[in-house]
């Protein structure tokens, strides 16, 4: 039923034969590529984002059943779009008794206004139907409107994340649940609630007006950054790195930059994600343990990701408006990416960049990182003074980061007993198993 969140299709259909893995993967591949355009086009056309999302999910569920039974169709995109359209018409017919506008739209949809053609990029006269399934001049605005809707400020932060991954990224509820270590019903409940909230708040499916756009873009960037950081460092649990989630965020940032080529901070975030992901191959050791920046084998860093990151940072700088919070973080990441070793890093520049970042986006974590950079640039004594200020201000209590850094600085100053106490405290507070192991090992080696 449209409007009701049914459980997503499981890989094993109940009582039936198991759905062929290859069919499921083929459906998911097409869906990842197409879902944003399908949901975006349907939402613009119907003016009803929640309905568009419902019928798109129904089309996906239908594809999983039909494709595993009959094999993938020759034109998967057209198939999905036609199915979603049929579902939308059914939905309108159900609602048309209540609302004349739906009756009108159902008629127009049936007349093929929203035609289900082949995918774009087919030579005229080739394929079953060379017509574009959507208006190529509108598709960018549709996808952008979708991104802004999914990241709308009326939504709770975790709802923005789930909705963005599902409607823009094309991830299933299962994939989102796995990525965030929550249950599938939890993800579904967040998405259902998000759609109800958007409907209740009367949020139109549209690009934000010009005067709101920059502020709203900040909200979009922060959602994508949250997804990226969640993928780069899991706060809890076994795996230090859920690279797939981070890469999905990176892909979405690339999409955003392609759609908004005049926004320096979007380039800044892209640079930050590229430069951070460049280190992924070096961040876990052979047994999956965390490897700190100073111990990483820099030969494992992905050079092409670094090159793309530096290019993107160059674009952000070239606007001449000064770097924002993401651009500054990217500039710091660039200092690391271009240094052959920890010793050869331009720590003075890193300190300056952290000072700038602390002014445009003040946070205790930035202060802490500045302290670490100061330790590298001028020595542990000055850094300890900064860290002690942080302790006194009580702004990072409960986080393992502060005692972790403090312990490290005390160790360098030869105050071993205090250092061990701090590192053990950090280990107790740390929620990531792998990071905790690193802290405990370090504490245990102190004589």
């Amino acid at each position: 039923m449209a409007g009701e969140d049914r459980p997503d299709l499981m890989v094993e259909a109940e009582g039936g034969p198991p759905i062929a893995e290859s069919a499921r993967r083929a459906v998911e591949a097409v869906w990842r590529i197409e879902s944003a355009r399908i949901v975006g086009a349907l939402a613009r056309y119907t003016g009803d984002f929640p309905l568009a999302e419902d019928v798109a999910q129904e089309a996906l569920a239908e594809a999983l059943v039909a494709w595993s039974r009959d094999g993938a169709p020759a034109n998967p995109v057209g198939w999905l779009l036609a199915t979603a359209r049929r579902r939308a018409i059914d939905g309108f017919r159900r609602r048309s008794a209540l609302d004349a506008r739906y009756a009108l739209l159902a008629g127009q949809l049936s007349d093929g206004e929203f035609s289900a053609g082949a995918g774009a990029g087919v030579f005229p006269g080739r394929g079953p139907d060379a017509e574009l399934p959507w208006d190529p001049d509108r598709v960018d605005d549709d996808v952008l409107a979708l991104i802004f809707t999914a990241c709308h400020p009326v939504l709770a932060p975790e709802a923005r994340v789930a909705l963005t991954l599902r409607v823009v990224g094309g991830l299933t509820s299962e994939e989102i649940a796995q990525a965030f270590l929550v249950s599938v019903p939890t993800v579904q409940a967040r998405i259902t609630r998000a759609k109800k909230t958007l409907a209740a708040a009367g949020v139109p499916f549209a690009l934000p007006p010009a005067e709101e756009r920059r502020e709203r873009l900040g909200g979009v960037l922060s959602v994508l950054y949250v997804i990226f950081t969640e993928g780069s460092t899991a706060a809890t649990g076994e795996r230090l790195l859920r690279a797939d989630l981070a890469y999905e965020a990176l892909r979405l940032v690339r999409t955003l930059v392609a759609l908004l080529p005049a926004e320096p901070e979007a380039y800044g975030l892209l640079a930050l994600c590229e430069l951070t992901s460049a280190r992924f191959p070096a961040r876990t050791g052979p047994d999956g343990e965390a490897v700190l920046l100073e111990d990483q084998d820099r030969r494992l860093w992905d050079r092409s990701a670094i090159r793309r990151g530096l290019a993107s940072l160059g674009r952000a700088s070239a606007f001449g408006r000064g770097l924002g919070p993401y651009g500054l973080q990217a500039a710091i990441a660039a200092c690391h990416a271009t240094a052959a070793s920890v010793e050869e890093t331009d720590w003075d520049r890193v300190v300056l960049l952290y000072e700038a970042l602390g002014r445009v986006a003040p946070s205790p974590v930035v202060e802490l990182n500045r302290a670490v950079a100061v330790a590298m640039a001028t020595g542990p004594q000055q850094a300890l003074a900064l860290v002690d200020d942080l302790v006194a201000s009580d702004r990072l209590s409960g986080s393992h980061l502060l005692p972790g850094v403090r312990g490290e600085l005390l160790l360098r100053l030869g105050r071993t007993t205090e250092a061990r106490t701090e590192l053990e405290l950090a280990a107790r507070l740390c929620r990531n198993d792998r990071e905790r192991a690193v802290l405990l090992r370090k504490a245990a080696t102190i004589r």
Partner: protein
Amino acid sequence: MSKYMLIMRGTDESLAKMMETPFEEMLETMGRFNEEMIRAGVLVAAEGLDDPSQGVVVDFSGETPVVTDGPYGETKELFGGFYLIDVASKEEAVEWARRLPAFPGTKCEVRRVPGIDEFPQDNEWIVKERAWRERTGQI
């Protein structure tokens, strides 16, 4: 997330088709496809090759390499260019390959590109290659 190379292989049939297609039309068709991959955030690199008749073949069938100028004889699956894409699965790479605006007769090979971390890092030649990649910012 893995890198895949989509390798375009042309034949006489597809080359002939390409020759009779107006250049502008071809640019637009390829451009639209490329734009889709850029919009989807998956395109990392792409290159296409010049007219094969301008090429040279070095043949290692005999004792010593034999060099012959183009044009080629009958061409079967002649390498014409590549896309390098960054995708979540092999199926996604295949789905992009299916969408190539290719002329009839073309074949597209989909091959995974192993990451540098899949090679022995202490091998001196891997070390040298890393150094070159660092200097030049290569893929």
